């Protein structure tokens, strides 16, 4: 393959991960009669409306009351149901936090919280509807599994696993805009296991969600600069696939993390914690740098707040220079 061929990868947008979630949930509803879906007056946006249309007797619109949703879900779970609660990431995580802590994490209840509108790619609605804190809040609760799928295929698989098979509290974030396709229908996904998408020897890009696509683009751009970058998709932030990250650190000796989240408390922090404990290597963080974003088109916001392949490439160049010889 020539350079020009490898420098281009074709972007194909698939469904938004929230749409993939809504469809998977409606499918799962037919398979598992224990599933009860709870929404907070946002079912057309979170896409739980698909489930609601098919199973109205197992769908409850709680109105604008996120704390109540989580508490009620806990009571339902105590009776053997599998409640799935949805709203925007910021509202459900922030307003339902004490209830998640007490009635889900501490109580070890089998409740699933699956949000939409994660990150800043929410767009024009602005800061009040965006979410850059949800990973940090979710991962800090004992027992929680925390998921952030990148495309429609990973979303579908992880909804099935986390709702139908896994027993215990789950938080999953989905997004508003159409998500570039990363996988195909044959790909196997396992909660807690990262996926190596590209091989490389100079640096490892560890990405999650929408940034997985940007990492693949960065891989091509770095290749042209003579830097060989491996790319890993971490769809499960907790439990983190430590083995994979340690293996990568040993193989490449440098890590860039990339996420649509605050630079504090998300993927970058989790990876750093693993590295410092097991195999310290230099790391750079592509994330929202301790600020709130604003209103704007999703693509414009990703550029302005530094969440594109460009910043990943810069971080990779910087981190490879920081490697100890």
């Amino acid at each position, binding site marked *: 393959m020539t350079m020009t061929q490898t420098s281009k990868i074709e972007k194909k947008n698939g469904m938004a991960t929230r749409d993939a979630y809504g469809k998977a949930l409606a499918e799962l509803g037919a398979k598992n009669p224990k599933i009860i879906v709870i929404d907070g007056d946002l079912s057309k946006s979170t896409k739980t409306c698909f489930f609601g249309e098919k199973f109205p007797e197992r769908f409850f619109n709680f109105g604008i009351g996120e704390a109540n949703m989580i508490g009620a879900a806990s009571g339902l779970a105590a009776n053997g149901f599998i409640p799935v609660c949805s709203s925007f990431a910021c509202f459900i995580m922030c307003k339902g936090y004490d209830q998640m802590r007490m009635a889900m994490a501490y109580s070890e209840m089998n409740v699933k919280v699956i949000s939409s509108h994660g990150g800043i790619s929410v767009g024009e609605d602005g800061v009040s509807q965006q979410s850059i804190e949800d990973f940090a809040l979710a991962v800090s609760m004992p027992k929680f599994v925390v998921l952030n799928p990148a495309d429609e295929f990973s979303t579908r698989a992880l909804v099935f696993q986390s709702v139908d098979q896994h027993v215990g509290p789950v938080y999953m974030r989905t997004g508003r805009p159409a998500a570039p396709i990363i996988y195909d229908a044959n790909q196997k996904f396992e909660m807690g296991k990262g996926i190596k998408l590209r091989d490389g020897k100079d640096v490892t890009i560890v990405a999650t969600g929408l940034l997985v696509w940007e990492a693949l683009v960065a891989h091509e751009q770095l290749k042209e600069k003579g830097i060989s970058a491996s790319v890993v998709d971490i769809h499960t932030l907790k439990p983190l696939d430590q083995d994979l990250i340690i293996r990568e650190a040993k193989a490449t000796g440098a890590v860039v993390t990339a996420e649509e989240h605050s630079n504090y408390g998300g993927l970058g922090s989790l990876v750093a914690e693993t590295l410092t404990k097991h195999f310290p290597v230099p790391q750079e963080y592509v994330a929202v740098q301790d600020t709130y974003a604003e209103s704007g088109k999703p693509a414009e*916001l990703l550029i302005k707040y530094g969440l594109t392949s460009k910043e990943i490439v810069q971080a990779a160049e910087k981190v490879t220079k920081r490697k100890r010889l």
Partner: protein
Amino acid sequence: MKKLGIREIEEKALLMRREIIRMIHKAQSGHPGSSLSATDILAALFFNEMKHDPKNPSWEDRDRFIFSKGHGVPALYAALALNGYLPVSELMTLRQINSRLQGHPDRRVLPGVEASTGSLGQGLSIGVGHALASRLLHKKFRTYVMLGDGECNEGQVWEAAMFASFHKLDGLSAILDYNKFQLDNSVKVVLDMHPMEEKWRAFGWAVMEINGHNMGEILAAFEWARNVKGSPQMIVAHTVKGKGVSFMEHNNHFHGVPPTDSEFKAAMAELGEPLGHPEEMKK
């Protein structure tokens, strides 16, 4: 500010409606229905009821307005622009990157915006804080909070309500934009809180019900509120979501969906305005 009379305020409200439709159409994003139902009340507040000074937005004796149902913010931007807080032409930057006109109110960037809202349920508490401050500072400023009916689902609204009456915060007036719709559907389908008036009364508030599009009733309600002693006041304003544009009225499609080009033309024709922004057309 000079207090306008009923006729003049109604004219301002019409201008506000044109600006609301224009800016949401330009942005191709925003909440027309939610803005239009609140328009007449905001016009009454900003052109008559409230003490405020566009030249000195942080004047410490100003009355406070907290737009708790922040997604209706185009109505607030229109009221602020027509008062001279910002150029009317700037309204066309709504929701664009680098604009001061954020999708929901942002108190950091636009003078005149009292509170950052958009996560529903928080504004009445902020209003409680202002009303307490007015008392502690021995000031006379009053605090006005506009709530949505769906928003009243939130428990925090009722935490604020019970605190405000317990502490006899008579400097606090809330206005309920009671348009009977929330996001997913009508309140009857999602979570009906009827009887709203009795709930607020039970929480210790003085309550008055009005037609939220009748300027005479709106002004009279504010006068009533100012004269209530010993308790906060709730003005339950029966409104029509999308008021002023026939095909948006009672049509929750326009909760959060902007008008298309042809809907824009139809709406502006109803509001009696040539298309395009007057200032832009001069160029």
